């Protein structure tokens, strides 16, 4: 078994996350889709690290991606709360204050 299965799994998961981000209108589901995409990238990083096991740079990079994803989730959910307080909904179509 080679690295191809892991790369295919990562790309399919990234595609699922991108599809969810582009097609859903719920901000919470969109944030979850972003998490799925970041996790797909992490799978590819760790797979490449396993296929070159002389150092751990891929796993360290995946660690940084996890840290950035945690920060992104915290700030994103705070923005969702502020958006809900303003618009009383979590549908992204309601965020059109700059249109007029």
């Amino acid at each position, binding site marked *: 078994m080679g690295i191809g299965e892991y790369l295919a799994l990562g790309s399919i998961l990234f*595609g699922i996350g991108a599809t969810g981000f582009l097609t859903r209108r719920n901000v919470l589901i969109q944030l979850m889709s972003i998490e799925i995409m970041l996790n797909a990238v992490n*799978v590819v990083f760790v797979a490449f690290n396993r296929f070159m096991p002389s150092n751990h740079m891929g796993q360290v990079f995946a660690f940084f991606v996890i840290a950035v994803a945690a920060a992104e989730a915290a700030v994103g959910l705070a923005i969702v709360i502020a958006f809900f307080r303003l618009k009383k909904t979590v549908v992204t179509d309601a965020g059109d204050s700059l249109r007029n």
Partner: protein
Amino acid sequence: MNTSGLMLFWVSAAVALGSAVGTISMRNPLRAAVSLLIHILSLCGIYLSLKAHLLATIQVLVYAGAVVVLFIFVIMLIGPTANEQRAPRAVGTRILGAVGALLSTSVLAFTLVRHDAQLLPIPQCPPGAGAECGQFGGVTAVGAELYLGSMVPFELVSILLTVAIVGAIAVAKGKTTATSPKNEGPTTPEGAA
């Protein structure tokens, strides 16, 4: 890779794909959050099949322990309006977008799956090595790489997390302190927008 490793990979990959599809297709955000939790735990199995033990632990701690709980807190805070109303006019573009994204992704996946670079043997510690020689994917080895090789990015990440916490508090707090002590009534202030 032995048989148990292969089984771990295929079962985890199937569960990861199914729960990812469930996350983006559930109408109730709470069910989507639980599906995301299953997705993250199955990715933990993927990491274990790649012998990244420390990263699998961090995945459970950070994602299942913090991020998903944060999502569920926000869903509970928002309440029943978190459920998405069906928008009938967007169905056509939604189907078009989904088909386009899945088509390009499957082309990418079928191209990538042909790469069959084989697994290299994991370098083992020499027989007389001390405790500083860590196992692949373990705490000692990854920690040495993290603190010795990537010191400056690690400190930058700590600054990033501090700024994110302060920013999240500042954004989520809003301007309620100026208005809420004055009016006791349940009516919302008109000038919120």
